[in-house]
């Protein structure tokens, strides 16, 4: 249609895609249209937001630009367009009913932490929402966790069952109110209600009595399980050693650190060092757990994070936590409510069944959680402030801001790995990476994984046309993927673990199309290799769409199944049993029987590994830091902490490293281990050796990179959650090489599902 120059006013339609629902977008458009004096309408569709107005060519341009420049805080526009349509006459500007036709194509709004306005309201004793634990507005509140269908409307969330009181309805309909079209809006008159159970029996309390009562109980040393945004959290007095110990015993969690919730940044600053980037993240609408360094001389949280100088902290991200935290006034333990190794509990019934043995008090509420999510965990490296995602869940998932792999428009489902499970979707338009879904060893996690997958399919109305799985055929995710493919008669593609890691970090840095060569340094604990061995210390080339294993750490014996990663002493033995003089360090770690037995098993063994995860384990054990771990990654974390601590107290340019031979593209660990043993004999401190070990790894990377004459280095795998290692790599390699780390995703196996999509986009092109 041509622009009709005789009629000044014509009808224009604007389309917006991205995170545009559940963030106050329609009210924002409404206000703006009013300011411009436009007539027309705005609505939500399954694709995003649609605006239709009468305007002249000049003012529509102005409107469009102003609109894009001033979008609501939590909105994110990925695509937008304006077009001239057939002329229509409108009387006023209105928010129209959502349109339910068409294909779903929208990013899902993540849960938004309580905003400043709502925070002020609940603390204002004269406000009707004073101390109301479920206060929300169009800028904050649960979103992804309560979504049932799209487009985003109250009826398509678990708020659908709540009737608004006249007052709330007024707010909802008033264009100048913050709660105009706020779908999660409630107040004490139409409240979301809590229920309290102590020792399995219901306690009768008025709604406004509950939090003060809980505070009293927490002060008395009780542990509470309380329903939050993505599931239940276990909370208790972080400064009460007895509470910490009680929780450890009840959770069968001897040493894994607990996260803490502080009432304010000020309280937090008393115990931990906070940099600007960390504060920004803590107070962002995602409000994740951030790993912070404890201030020197502060040992009041020794039991919270045994032997660690860093603790995971967060700020209250929901009004309920805000009120509770404020009234309690100090640090609260805030750890996922689950039985160890099981997924976070998010259904009330399950909480009453499963958490009763852990928590003295259980607090439910009748706003149903539909999508379980743990709290996200993020850390910054000390020197270079490189952001490292440890866990990506509440506040971030399931959106992935990438756009789309430029492949054929087929719906591709990637099943991910196992211990840190996620799934990823490439739909026709968008890319989604699910929240961290836990360890698929657990039956409940398997069920959760499956349910989240089904929920996702339902909400986005999408069905896979192809399924991607890991090469490890015993992973539940692989088995489920195969089964789904069989049922739906669609193809399955098997993708090697480390290639998926590599493809993930390449894609995150827009390197899939690069014509230059990239060296992938893919280091993790376990991934099934193409030669039937367990890979984990990999150097790979990427060139013009092809992956090639270039070098790897020399194989050592992988024995005793999952017992090996649980017991670093076994890695120590496997790595160094052939070295002279090592016996005196290793033997005391075993009983006579074990020692003889394992040496025999080592001789007969077939399965090999190049795992750096196990190398860290082995070194930690040789240094007598730890012989048996109680949580995954413990040995590597302790080794890193020892090294960081040493550097803290020895402020100089560290230059020492163990020289390592590379023979036929295999990095020999024997010299490295022999060097460590020499240093132990020379009575060098554990911290010194730990730093030297880290630096040696950087040297190895640098050597291989230099030899292969490659400019681009990309890093993936759980080993790169090690902040010191990442810092050292940047310190020593950034000058000569272009370094690429993960951006939105974790380097650990959470990125595998996304990597599978990335890999597939290459082989499919």
């Amino acid at each position: 249609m041509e622009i009709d120059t005789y009629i000044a006013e014509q009808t224009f339609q604007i389309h917006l895609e991205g995170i545009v629902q559940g963030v106050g977008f329609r009210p924002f458009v409404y206000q703006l249209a009013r300011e411009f004096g436009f007539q027309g309408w705005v609505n939500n569709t399954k694709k995003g937001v649609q605006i239709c107005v009468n305007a002249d060519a000049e003012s529509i341009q102005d409107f469009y630009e102003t609109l894009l420049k001033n979008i609501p805080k939590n909105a994110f526009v990925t695509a937008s367009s304006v077009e001239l349509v057939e002329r229509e006459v409108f009387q006023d500007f209105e928010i129209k009913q959502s349109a339910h036709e068409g294909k779903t194509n929208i990013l899902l709004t993540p849960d938004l932490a309580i905003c400043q306005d709502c925070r002020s309201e609940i603390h204002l004793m004269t406000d009707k929402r004073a101390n109301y634990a479920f206060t929300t507005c169009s800028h904050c509140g649960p979103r992804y966790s309560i979504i049932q269908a799209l487009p985003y409307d109250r009826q398509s969330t678990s708020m659908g069952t709540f009737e608004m009181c006249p007052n709330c309805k007024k707010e909802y309909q008033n264009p100048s109110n913050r709660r105009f079209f706020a779908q999660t809006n409630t107040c004490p008159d139409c409240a979301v209600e809590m229920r309290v159970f102590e020792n399995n029996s219901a306690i009768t309390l008025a709604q406004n009595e509950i939090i003060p009562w809980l505070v009293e109980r927490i002060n008395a040393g009780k542990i509470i399980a309380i329903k939050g945004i993505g599931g239940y959290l276990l909370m208790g007095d972080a400064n009460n050693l007895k509470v910490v110990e009680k929780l450890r015993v009840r959770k069968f969690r001897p040493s894994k650190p607990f996260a803490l919730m502080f009432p304010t940044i000020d309280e937090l600053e008393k115990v931990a060092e906070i940099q600007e980037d960390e504060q920004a993240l803590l107070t962002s609408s995602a409000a994740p757990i951030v790993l912070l360094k404890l201030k020197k001389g502060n040992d009041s949280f020794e039991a919270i994070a045994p032997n660690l100088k860093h603790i995971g902290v967060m700020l209250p991200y929901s009004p309920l936590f805000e009120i509770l935290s404020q009234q309690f006034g100090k640090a609260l333990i805030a750890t996922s409510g689950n039985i160890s190794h099981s997924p976070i509990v998010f259904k009330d019934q399950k909480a009453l069944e499963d958490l009763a043995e852990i928590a003295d008090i259980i607090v439910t509420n009748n706003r149903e959680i539909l999508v379980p999510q743990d709290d996200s965990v993020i850390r910054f490296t000390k020197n270079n402030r490189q952001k490292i995602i440890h866990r990506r869940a509440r506040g971030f998932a399931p959106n992935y801001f990438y756009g789309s792999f430029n492949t054929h428009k087929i719906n591709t489902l990637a099943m991910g790995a196992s211990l840190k499970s996620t799934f990823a979707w490439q739909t026709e338009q968008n890319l989604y990476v699910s929240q961290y879904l836990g360890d698929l060893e657990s039956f409940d996690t398997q069920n959760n994984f499956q349910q989240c997958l089904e929920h996702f399919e339902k909400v986005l109305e999408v069905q896979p046309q192809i399924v991607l799985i890991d090469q490890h055929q015993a992973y539940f995710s692989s088995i489920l993927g195969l089964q789904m493919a069989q049922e739906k008669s669609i193809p399955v593609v098997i993708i090697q673990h480390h290639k998926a890691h590599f493809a993930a970090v390449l894609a995150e840095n827009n390197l899939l199309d690069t014509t230059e060569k990239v060296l992938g340094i893919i280091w993790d604990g376990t991934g099934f290799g193409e030669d039937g061995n367990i890979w984990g210390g990999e150097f790979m080339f990427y060139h013009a769409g092809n992956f090639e294993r270039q070098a790897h750490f020399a194989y050592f014996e992988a024995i005793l199944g999952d017992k090996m990663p649980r017991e670093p002493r076994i890695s120590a033995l496997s790595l160094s049993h052939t070295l002279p003089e090592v016996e005196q360090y290793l033997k005391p770690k075993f009983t006579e029987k074990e020692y003889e037995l394992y040496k025999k098993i080592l001789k007969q063994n077939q399965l090999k590994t190049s795992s750096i995860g196990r190398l860290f384990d082995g070194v930690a054990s040789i240094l007598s830091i730890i012989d048996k771990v109680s949580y995954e990654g413990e040995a590597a974390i302790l080794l890193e902490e020892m090294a960081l601590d040493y550097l803290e107290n020895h402020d100089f340019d560290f230059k020492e490293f163990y020289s390592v031979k590379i023979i036929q593209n295999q990095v020999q660990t024997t010299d490295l281990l022999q060097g460590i043993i020499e240093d132990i004999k020379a009575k060098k401190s554990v911290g010194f050796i730990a730093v030297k070990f880290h630096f040696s790894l950087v040297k190895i990377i640098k050597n291989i990179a230099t030899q292969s004459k490659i400019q681009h280095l990309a890093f993936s795998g759980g080993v790169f959650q090690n902040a010191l290692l990442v810092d050292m790599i940047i310190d020593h390699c950034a000058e000569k090489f272009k370094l690429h780390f993960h951006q939105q995703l974790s380097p650990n196996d959470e990125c595998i599902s996304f990597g599978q999509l990335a890999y597939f986009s290459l082989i499919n092109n």
Partner: protein
Amino acid sequence: LGHGSGGILTNKLLESGVFKLLSNDLLDEKHDGAVFNASGKMAFSTDSYVISPIFFPGGNIGELAVNGTVNDLSMCGAIPAYLSLSFIIEEGLSMKDFWQILVSIKFACERAGVQIVTGDTKVVEKGKGDKIFINTSGIGTVHPKAEIHIKRLEVGDKIIVSGNIATHGMAIMSVREGLEFESTILSDTCPLNHTIKSLLDEFGTDIHLLRDPTRGGVATVLNEIARDSKTGINIHQKAIPVIEEVASACELLGLDPLYVANEGVFLAIVKADIADSFLHSLKKLDFGKDAAIIGEVVAEHQGQVILTSKIGGKRVVNMLVGEQLPRIC
């Protein structure tokens, strides 16, 4: 056997010795086969024994071969009566070892109350066998009250294990690769037929299924049951009896006792309301004192076996596929 161990022995010579030792009326007739009367519903079973080592703490391949077939028949609800016995012997097996095995067979038959009524012996060249292979087949009359079939499984049925699990497998493991443990673990190989008969006398059709979890252990058998019956099975780690030495030997090797082979142990799946009295009776019978109710048949998660761990988490007990690869990253 063979050269260097007492001259050349022919099959014939051997057989006459075997015949003499295992002598009974039917065997003594020396027909090409055994001839006897039978009536009613019969059960018939066969198994070959190729275990290494042939002597292990608590037993040897001979008694294993007898007990194995006796137990397989018992699991059908039958009362074992007659067995066939065949040897495939590798040249070089010592006469002493062979006789020891034979004597064990004789005692095992007496203990179980069964007779060897027909048999065969072959000697193969060195390198074509592994010391000795034994095949036994057995026949027995089905207990009049027995109605044992996978289709009889009902939601709510209780799963009972008759004794400590994983003992036999760990006994074998302890000697196979020369992996000696703190204290010697003895195989629990034994004939279960008398125990089963007593239980069938008392509980008859309320016993829905009997299985002996030999190779692949309790985990494998329960998986087969869940798969074939299209029900779900729940088991509870706390309830599963394992003797301490065996548990720590498993821990030592990173093995799950649920996957380790058993011999003198059976699984019974019985109607829920008789489970307690079944357990009570079983505990007083031979080889039943350590029996325990370890789980139940459920309607959910069809085809899957779910273990509730000691700390309350739930884990899928998979059918073991190939070797155990590490999974932890």
